[in-house]
């Protein structure tokens, strides 16, 4: 109960402040919050959620999952092999330095303007934090744990599944968390370039047609979506890594 109050306290205050300050606003571009909220219900009907939010979510999830799988798989391979690491690392640093939005026009040339393009953009942006964190996590696996696995004949795929991946999982989770926020940003950006539906597309449409309260309501929806996704992520992480948080609280207490 107290925790809930802490979580909700500041957002409530901020919203209240926005509400009060914007109450008498005459500015066309910054309408009162009351009008924004009013348009929120009108704008985001079930139809629109289906037509615009679902496609966005689908691209987001597809891109994110794909990036996670590629990032973890490549990361494990690179983390385990010194030779591969030496060969690949400089190239990775180069690709990582390219801001993904710059690539949207390029990717459009190859992948068109459909879902494929947007998913590729998301993958390209998300894969780096996952990949680099996985490499670091795999490299940092305790040598005693690896010796134990070898001494007990745990090799090959079992070694990766039962020892390397779980040992690296706290670091992998840190990468996945970073990737999630990048994925949301890139979802919106890719839809702003060329799209016929989606949240980013709709928000830009509202802005261009001077439907300002509706535009603001879309931004709020985007914020809520991001918040809900990171909450889901934290719940899942807390469950999967409960051993890690428990272990940490024990070793800190000593």
């Amino acid at each position, binding site marked *: 109960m107290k925790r809930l109050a802490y979580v909700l306290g500041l957002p409530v205050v901020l919203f209240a402040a926005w509400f009060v300050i914007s109450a008498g606003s005459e500015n066309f571009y910054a309408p009162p919050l009351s009008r924004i909220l009013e348009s929120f219900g009108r704008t985001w009907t079930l139809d629109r959620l289906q037509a615009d939010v679902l496609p966005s979510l689908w691209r987001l999830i597809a891109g994110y999952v794909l990036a996670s799988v590629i990032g973890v798989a490549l990361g494990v391979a690179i983390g385990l092999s010194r030779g591969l690491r030496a060969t690949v690392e400089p190239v990775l640093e180069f690709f990582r330095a390219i801001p993904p939005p710059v690539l949207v026009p390029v990717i459009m040339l190859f992948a068109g303007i459909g879902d494929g393009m947007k998913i590729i953009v998301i993958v390209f942006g998300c894969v780096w934090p996952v990949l680099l964190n996985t490499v670091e996590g795999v490299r940092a696996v*305790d040598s*005693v*744990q690896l*010796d*134990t696995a*070898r*001494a*007990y*004949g*745990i*090799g090959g795929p*079992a070694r990766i599944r*039962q*020892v390397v991946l*779980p*040992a690296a*999982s706290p670091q992998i989770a840190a990468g996945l968390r970073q990737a999630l926020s990048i994925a949301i940003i890139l979802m919106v950006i890719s839809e702003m370039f060329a799209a016929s539906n989606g949240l980013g597309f709709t928000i830009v449409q509202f802005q261009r047609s001077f439907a300002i309260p509706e535009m603001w309501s879309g931004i709020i929806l985007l914020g809520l979506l991001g918040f809900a996704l990171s909450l889901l992520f934290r719940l899942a992480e807390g469950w999967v890594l409960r*051993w*890690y948080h*428990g*272990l940490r609280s*024990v*070793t800190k207490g000593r």
Partner: protein
Amino acid sequence: MLEVQGLRKVYKSAGRSGRSGQREVEALRDLTFTVDTGELVCLVGPSGCGKTTLLRCIAGLLEPSGGKVSLDGREVNGPSPGLAMVFQEYGRSLFPWMSVRDNVELPLRQKKLPRERRVELVEQALEAVGLAGTESAFPWQLSGGMQQRVAIARAVAYEPSTLLMDEPFAAVDAQTRADLEDLVRALWQRLGVTVLFITHDIDEAVYLGQRVVMLSSSPTVVQDEVTVDLPADRDQLHTRADPRFTALRTHVYEQIQAAKLGAVSQAAPRS
């Protein structure tokens, strides 16, 4: 039976000057000793005597530079299913993401044992180390001594012919240590496994072993060997007060001191 014949290990580290700069560090010079089937032998040596190197060679985790190790008549050239190891760092050797049960069971799954047999072995092993009822706990929820018991249970469940123990009680408190020493002797007598127990604690070596092998400082050779002619039934109170125990520990102590001095007089002329 565990045989170590003329074991030698030299570490090569590439120097800065490329071609000519290869530095060689001789960790083990020439080690020969045998542990008979069903025997409990303790290995003591001064600190830094290459115990870890020796152990890793025996376990098949490290390739020796010369000589050989054979286990039950077969030469060791990789981890062997006939050998289980208990590491010194229990906190790092148990997998913190697995429950106690899964930790003990994982090696058995790799052995492709059927489920019922695995359940049975895990249960028996945990029972034998006095940990029945902790199956679903995570290892880090247990005390240090209990964690090392889990590691011992994992080794026992593996049904090895030979048990290799690397200073397993170096990190637990004295009272727990005494309990664990008695546990090791009890398990050894019950299961009839061959045990090689490495320690830096002279009292522990004499208390546990049927034989104590003393190592010299690095580069390591066997300094001396002594048979512990104490009764098979040992307990912390009476065995340690036995005059024979005191005489044996004095002997081992003197040999270890001699080994250290030997290292000093050897090193002196060079520097």
